[in-house]
């Protein structure tokens, strides 16, 4: 690890979070959603919009960039902005980049947001808007193999074949996250489910059923990144950015082992940066585009041995009262799909002690992760800490 990275630890903080309601049809543009979430996050931090001097987002051509949001909110002279191309694998890199910009003094108050009409307008990987812009699509699309549920199902079966992971393991995870969502007023899906409900849900792409798959959601979420020093003087308890890491992953056309993700390479750097290990994590918000992506991350972030993610979940370890509560908001599977930013915001709520009925008692350190690096070789993650 570069020595100077140590100077990054806990230098910056998340000082505010903001949401729009989650729905199946927002009825408004992604620009409107973005503006609402940005203003809500700024309000939460106790700042005025005029104090924002940086904006950052990630998108796949489906949302409003900072160059639209800035002028729309009258933020005329942004000293830093980022329009990051990419899906869930870069969601946490955006906040990491913002923290770097703040730590470097390029900006003082950066709002990171993701606004998405994923249900009513742009259905990712679906039939409406064609395939993602990557030349590698030509080696899969002719076979009717284009959508994320298909691709993650392919990796899930590889894991099942290699380690004996079973449908009941995936189901246990879906059941646990739904139970968490039942305690989250913001969640779209709050009716508890059973393992039988999971097993009875219709096939999407075997081995995935409907309840293996994330929701498609209209909504936006934003977080305010500023210096730790400044955050301490603001309205909310500051949540420090202890570590931010980027990593590689698995090209879908070349890898030695598709059951190991980029998270396995990133995790040691991330933990070293924070000076912490998996045993120090009190609560984890792990990117759950599908049930399987959580199971493989539990292994690759070191919470259980390789291949044992399924039994680990089925043991109840990731439930709200387990040794490592995971996706306490319900995750993409049950709260809503805002492409990673709602995972960061939930981590902040937990560390502030503001998560209501789903609060993990005494939570001081949280891990929040992006898509672990399948399909496109990139991933990212944050370790956040109560100040």
């Amino acid at each position: 690890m570069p020595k100077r990275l140590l100077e990054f630890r806990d230098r910056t903080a998340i000082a505010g979070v903001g949401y729009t309601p989650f729905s199946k049809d927002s009825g408004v543009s992604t620009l409107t959603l973005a503006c609402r979430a940005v203003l809500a996050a700024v309000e939460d931090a106790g700042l005025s919009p005029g104090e924002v001097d940086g904006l950052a987002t990630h998108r796949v051509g489906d949302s409003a960039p900072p160059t639209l949001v800035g002028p729309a909110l009258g933020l005329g002279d942004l000293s830093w902005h980022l329009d990051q191309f990419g899906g869930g694998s870069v969601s946490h890199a955006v906040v990491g980049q913002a923290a770097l910009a703040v730590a470097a003094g390029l900006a003082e108050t950066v709002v990171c947001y993701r606004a998405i009409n994923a249900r009513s307008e742009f259905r990712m990987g679906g039939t409406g808007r064609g395939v993602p812009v990557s030349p590698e699509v030509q080696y899969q699309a002719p076979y009717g193999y284009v959508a994320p549920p298909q691709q993650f199902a392919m990796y899930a079966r590889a894991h099942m074949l290699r380690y004996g992971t079973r449908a009941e393991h995936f189901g246990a995870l879906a059941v646990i996250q739904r139970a968490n969502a039942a305690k989250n007023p913001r969640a779209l899906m709050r009716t508890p489910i059973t393992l039988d409900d999971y097993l009875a849900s219709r096939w999407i792409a075997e081995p995935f059923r409907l309840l293996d798959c994330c929701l498609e959601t209209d909504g936006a979420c934003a977080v305010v990144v500023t210096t730790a020093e400044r955050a301490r003087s603001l309205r909310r308890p500051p949540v420090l950015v202890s570590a931010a890491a980027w990593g590689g992953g698995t090209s879908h056309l070349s890898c030695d082992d598709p059951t190991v993700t980029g998270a396995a390479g990133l995790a040691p750097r991330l933990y070293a940066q924070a000076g912490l290990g998996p045993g120090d994590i009190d609560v984890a918000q792990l990117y759950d585009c599908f049930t399987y992506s959580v199971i493989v991350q539990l292994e690759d972030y070191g919470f259980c041995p390789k291949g044992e993610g399924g039994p680990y979940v089925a043991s109840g370890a990731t439930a709200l009262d387990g040794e490592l509560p995971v996706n306490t908001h319900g995750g993409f599977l049950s709260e809503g799909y805002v492409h990673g930013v709602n995972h960061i915001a939930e981590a902040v709520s937990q560390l502030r002690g503001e998560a209501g009925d789903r609060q993990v008692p005494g939570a001081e350190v949280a891990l929040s992760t992006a898509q672990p690096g399948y399909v496109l070789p990139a991933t990212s993650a944050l370790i956040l800490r109560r100040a």
Partner: protein
Amino acid sequence: MPGYRPQPDRDSLGWWERVARRQFAVQECGACGTLRFPPRAFCAACRTEGWNWREVAPEGKVESWIVNRRPFVPGLGDPYLVVMVRLTPVPGCLMYGNWRAERPPEPGERVRGVFTQVDEALTVLDWMPESFIPARPAENPAAG
């Protein structure tokens, strides 16, 4: 299988042209001899540009598969099976294709690529159990 059609680019055009002629070729680095897929200008092993096409056996092992049950691609409503194959002659490389057998694959099953002519303009590579392939190579001749 209809649905999306490949859009060859300046790196891949030669590969698709060979598939259309029922040839299975990958790139061979001119400097270090490393075989690679998909087609691209640089060798990732030695970072040089010179290369040539090298015909190799379309052989591999089943690493995973899905049975698609939703119409993710327009016109493809019925269940179909997509297989992930680890290429035997090209280390580290994975390919996909539709499964050309009435039964599902077996884990680690040895498979062989077969060419499927979708229409006059498009031929794709699919996979079938190696045990299905007759011993005589003439069964799957190169066109033209």
